[in-house]
């Protein structure tokens, strides 16, 4: 049951999107978001949709997963859309009391909903589904590398993030197991008022914290046994280097971005 909450939802694969340099993917995702907000009108939106479709097809993860990424936010999307629908002035199509719907309002609502949906699904496909958490933190660490000059502990922060990401599934599994074990002894997590339920969590939280601290301790010792000393003089097993694939991706992205900006900003 808890398993369904997926945070690092990496879907292993070997598609071109999977194989792209994580640094590039982070930069391109940012670019995608910026360009998305510059789109305006049916043509440029169409091109963004095409871009998204291209990414999804190339990544070879099913449409099912893309839809799943949007689903939790469906309510917010609809809410924003409806709010916009009643809010925008223009040619009135329908009105009642102080409420009115305009043609422009409906248009804005549709664009708004599309924008949020494309924002989320694009980010999910590029960063969540096709980039393993380790690659992601690797990419972030290297992109933020220059900050080391002003004494930001970039490596340490990235390492902490990697460890945290690595242990989220473990902790979820552990929570599941402890909850089951306490349920087997008649613990009741589901009924009663707020105070009762909060109290009922104690049998779950105590063992969870105990085991989290034990794990942390063991991991720290294991890292020190292997002479981990932070970033100082540390080399990497896999250095990130842009490949031919990445240059092609940059070129395609540049063309698409230019197209969207032209259609959205320059033409209308």
């Amino acid at each position: 049951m808890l398993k369904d909450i997926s945070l690092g939802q990496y879907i292993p694969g070997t598609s071109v999107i999977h194989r792209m340099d994580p640094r590039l993917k982070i930069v391109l995702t940012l670019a995608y978001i910026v360009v998305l907000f510059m789109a305006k009108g049916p043509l440029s939106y169409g091109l963004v949709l095409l871009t998204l479709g291209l990414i999804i097809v190339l990544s070879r993860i099913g449409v099912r997963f893309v839809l799943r990424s949007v689903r939790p936010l469906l309510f917010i999307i609809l809410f924003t859309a409806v709010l916009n629908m009643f809010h925008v002035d223009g040619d009135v199509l329908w009105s009642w009391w102080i409420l009115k719907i305009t043609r422009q309002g409906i248009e804005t609502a549709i664009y708004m909903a599309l924008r949020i949906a494309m924002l989320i699904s694009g980010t999910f496909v590029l960063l969540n589904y096709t980039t393993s958490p380790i690659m992601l933190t690797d990419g972030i660490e290297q992109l933020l590398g220059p900050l080391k000059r002003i004494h930001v502990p970039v490596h340490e922060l990235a390492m902490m993030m990697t460890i945290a990401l690595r242990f989220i599934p473990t902790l979820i599994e552990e929570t599941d197991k402890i909850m089951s074990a306490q349920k087997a002894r008649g613990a009741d997590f589901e009924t009663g008022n707020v105070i009762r339920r909060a109290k009922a969590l104690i049998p779950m939280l105590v063992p969870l914290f105990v085991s989290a601290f034990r794990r942390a301790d063991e991991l720290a010792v294991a890292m020190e046994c292997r002479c981990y000393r932070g970033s100082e003089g540390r080399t990497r097993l896999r250095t990130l280097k842009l490949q031919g694939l990445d240059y092609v991706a940059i070129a395609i992205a540049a063309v698409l971005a230019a197209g969207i900006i032209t259609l959205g900003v320059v033409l209308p």
Partner: protein
Amino acid sequence: MNTILETRDLHFVYGGNSPTAQTALNGINLTIREGEFLGLIGHTGSGKTTFVQHLNGLLTPISGQILYRGEDIHANGFKLRGLRFKVGLVFQYPEHQLFEETVARDIAFGPRNMGLSDAEVAERVRQAAAFVGLGDDVMDKSPFDLSGGQKRRAAIAGVIAMRPEVLILDEPTAGLDPYGAFQILSQIREFRDKSGSTVVLVTHNMETVARAADRLVVFSQGTVAMDGTPEQIFGQPERLEALGLDVPQVSKVFMKLRELGIDVETSVYTVKYAKNLVETLLREGGQVC
């Protein structure tokens, strides 16, 4: 003997509709009779843990039924929480579930959830602790200050204190020293003999299961591959081997003896029985040595 638990064509898949979905149970039909000591064995990943978590309703099968005394436990109106007091499940590495300030209070967690009176709870805690061999001196300690073996005992006592009709133990001796494992097992047997409870023991240790169980069920890839008395099961060492399992060491000795042309039975699986057999053989004539 009456049937106490029965499963009908149980299917279970982990990770529902994700790309990593994993079939864990693939049509399990099993009848557990009241009062029997059932040993559940199987290669790692064969679905034993998944199966026993269905028996007290912690996991819900995607298809199939679990019947407790003839009643479907997932039927409307069936009290699952009540079932958990009757079908007590001790998890693998149960010491990770300890949480109270003292051992006594931790053991009391289950009985207290049952809504028993303080006096009754205290009595049950005392008795359960005695069953697993925890002395009075540790009862007021923090469970986190105990040794690994003591923690394990405390956790088992926490389930025994509910006086379940069926006691299920998932690898209760994993990671213990041989003597500690032997002791815990003897205590479980003693509990069974005194209380008349049904016991289901999941284990990897063939010696253990050979000594304790009346009936063995072998799991393989989410199905019941073999089901019978220890004699019947250990009498088929080739099949066991094909399922990735071992026979007890004494059985191996006897199989070797047979290969050497000595006329002995092959379904020998306890050291005690083996000893008698060897002694008789030796008495009958020197042809053995």
